[in-house]
């Protein structure tokens, strides 16, 4: 019985960076594609290439990787969801989760740091959310690990007795996926980090190290951080080399 992880396309692309690290470090094999009109098409050579032999495997906008030993499946989404198709995409993911029968699903995501309230500015930037069926299974364990649940916000800020609602600004389909999974009784967890656009590599590492304390994807001795392998595709994230004539 497998469990599954996927990123939401969200602020800083942190979820996707984290998934890249998982696939690259655990040497996961591609086992399928998510071929849908909901994503902007993209293609490129193997982002996790380790040698000349595997460098030229074509990669598309959404692919599924698997590690049978860890009973882990991972969905990587590499391009933005087309505007107005997010509802359709959520339905596609929910239906896939149900038919595949994953024992649990974890969504890695992020949210705009600048929309935190005064309380959220203090302490850890990491949050989690669990659907009811996941709450039964894992809720106590995460509380023991001192994880912080995502706070709800007032529908009308400043009005003390107004309705509380869940808000994940910059989270893309995260909130929709969570609400749909609650409604369909799917065991799903969201793990997210507050961050801003920029060099989000450190955020990806923070999110992944945090996730690892729960899922133990990579075994690490106590008091050390896990070692993740950075994939080849992370080169030149901020553009090409500089022309020498500039100086």
């Amino acid at each position: 019985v497998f469990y599954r992880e996927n990123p939401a396309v969200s602020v800083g692309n942190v979820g996707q960076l984290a998934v890249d690290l998982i696939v690259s470090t655990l040497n996961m094999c591609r086992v399928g594609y998510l071929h849908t009109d909901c994503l902007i098409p993209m293609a490129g050579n193997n982002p996790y290439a380790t040698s000349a032999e595997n460098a030229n495997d074509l990669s598309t906008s959404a692919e599924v990787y698997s590690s049978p030993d860890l009973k882990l499946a991972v969905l990587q989404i590499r391009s933005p969801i087309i505007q107005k198709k997010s509802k359709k995409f959520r339905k596609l993911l929910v239906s896939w989760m149900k038919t595949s029968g994953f024992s649990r699903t974890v969504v890695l995501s992020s949210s705009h740091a600048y929309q935190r309230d005064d309380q959220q500015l203090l302490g850890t930037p990491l949050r989690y959310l669990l659907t009811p069926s996941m709450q039964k299974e894992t809720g106590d364990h995460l509380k023991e690990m001192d994880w912080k649940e995502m706070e709800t916000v007032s529908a009308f800020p400043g009005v003390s007795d107004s309705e509380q609602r869940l808000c994940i600004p910059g989270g893309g389909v995260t909130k929709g996926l969570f609400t749909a999974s609650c409604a369909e009784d799917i065991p799903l967890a969201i793990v997210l980090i507050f961050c801003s656009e920029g060099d989000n590599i450190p955020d990806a590492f923070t999110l992944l190290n945090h996730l690892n304390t729960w899922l133990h994807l990579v075994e690490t001795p106590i008091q050390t951080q896990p070692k993740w392998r950075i994939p080849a595709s992370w080169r030149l994230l901020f553009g090409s080399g500089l022309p020498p004539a500039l100086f």
Partner: protein
Amino acid sequence: MATFFGEVLSVYSRAVEEDDDELDDENEEDEQIRREIEEKREVYIEWYPDVTQSVSSGNCTLQCSDLIIAVGPNASGFLSAYVLNTESWDAVGHVSLWNEKSRCTSRQPPLPGEPACRFYRHRDNPSVLMCQSTCYVAEDQLFQWADKVFGSLLNRGLNVMVLSDSPVAEYKTPDNLYGSAVPFLRSLKSSAFKDQALCPALEQPNILTGLPAAVLSHCQVHRIPAVLYQCYTDVIGPDTVTMETYKPALTSLSKLVKLEPCPSADALRRFAKVSEAQSNLYT
């Protein structure tokens, strides 16, 4: 977000658009408007009467062994100058679509010179199809384009070649390209393509987007052998030097159809736009 100078900037994310929850608050009227917009943006393949007649009734599916697609003015210009210059090609169809930049909605064949997606078939070898795409296909239409074009073809035994233009500014390399040989070719191929490509592979972290990406993704998922040659150039618009960069593809193309010997410089110039300043303060 406030900046050092006190003004407030709206912050955006490169990954997500805001207002992703809009769709959940739709009422019937919103839904109807959304459906009408979707219908307006639908992609149609218009096959001409002589083609539809030669295929059995029902779905128009063409027998096709080789499909060559050119995306962009230089790739299309290359095909026009080196391949479509003989009298052996018939126009067999075009794509009709509407978006903010392309109004190719007519069921009639587009006029020469008009941006469009046109299909041609070789008279002596009717299983060889060529497509020149010079119009803009929007992000939400790309998947449909590939799906409908390949849906019109019998995929058994199909091989695909894509030629595509790209600005060299989008090419990422650790060594700066100043003084290097530009324009140049890079290739990508689907897993089912077992031959050698005719130029070096596109190195990570470079990626394809747009129509070439939609075509190659479709071929990868449906296990169709496909190879793509992307030409990185520093010239905007059709240019003879850029068009000539695609010449290595002629070795594969000459195995499919008889090609004319190299076109003259004059013939090439016909397909290249010469940009002349209409008026100049200094002359």
